[in-house]
């Protein structure tokens, strides 16, 4: 995502990234980011916590206004749990699912509802 943020900046549009993977965001050189120290998959806040979700996005947008140094990362204060033991088990083994080259729907009903001519699904040609 850092690569895309950089491309967007190159067109003159300021960008800010949310992040829960600080090492990756820094390595990719994201222009600006707010770091939320949560397990991956909740980058924009805790499920159903509207106040937190609003606050995370608002902090990110404030950074667009306030950051002056490229690569600025602001860490948010939220904690996922009372202790950080969840970090011990993250990526200690290969937990990725088998990868298929056919569409992987969240539920079977979505497959039957999908428009085979989908005009908002955009496939890109190789460079």
């Amino acid at each position, binding site marked *: *995502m*850092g*690569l*895309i943020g*950089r*491309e*967007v*900046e190159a*067109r003159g*549009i*300021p*960008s*800010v*990234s*949310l992040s829960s*993977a*600080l*090492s*990756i965001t820094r390595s*990719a050189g994201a*222009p600006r980011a707010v770091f939320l*120290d949560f397990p*991956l*998959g*909740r*980058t*924009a806040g805790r*499920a*159903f916590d509207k106040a937190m979700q*609003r606050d995370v*996005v608002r902090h990110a*947008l*404030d950074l*667009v206004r306030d*950051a002056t*140094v*490229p*690569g600025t990362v602001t860490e948010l204060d939220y904690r996922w749990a*009372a202790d950080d033991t969840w*970090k011990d088990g*993250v*990526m200690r083994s290969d937990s*990725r699912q*088998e*990868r298929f080259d056919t*569409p*992987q*729907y*969240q539920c079977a009903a979505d*497959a039957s509802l*999908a*428009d085979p001519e*989908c005009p*908002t*699904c*955009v*496939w*890109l040609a*190789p*460079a």
Partner: protein
Amino acid sequence: MTERQPPVDYIARTRAVYSSLGYPPYRWVANEPLAALARTSKPRSEWRIGLIASGGIYAVGQIAFHHRDDYSYREIARDTPVEDLRTTHFAYDQADARQDPNVVFPLETLRGLAAEGVIGEVGANAYTFMGGIYSASKVRDVLAPALADRLVADAVDVALMVPV
């Protein structure tokens, strides 16, 4: 509250897992910070925000992503109901995202901020893809320019990027 541990170093842990499986190390992108930041002279209350998210989000009626280096994207209209949003991804825990898509795709959050007047509006479309694309050159040379073109065409003032 107990003492905090440092952030998880996903690059180091990926390296360790790959090494334990006998794979060569994954070559993460390593960029220097940009020389300068783009700016907007408008006040935040007038910003049109473009949203790009990589959590494998699609809307009902769209074709889902596949899981082998899919670098297509989906265009999701700004007024799409949250109930119509889905996720698919091979690598992250989607338990929360499938109950509340806002955790990886804050479209409703942005609509709320626009309704409050904190921002001006949300771009006509949000754009989504499925991260975990192994080929950095596909992202850099194909997907990134295509998405940046869309944000330019939508005349957004600021882009919000949401990885998982």
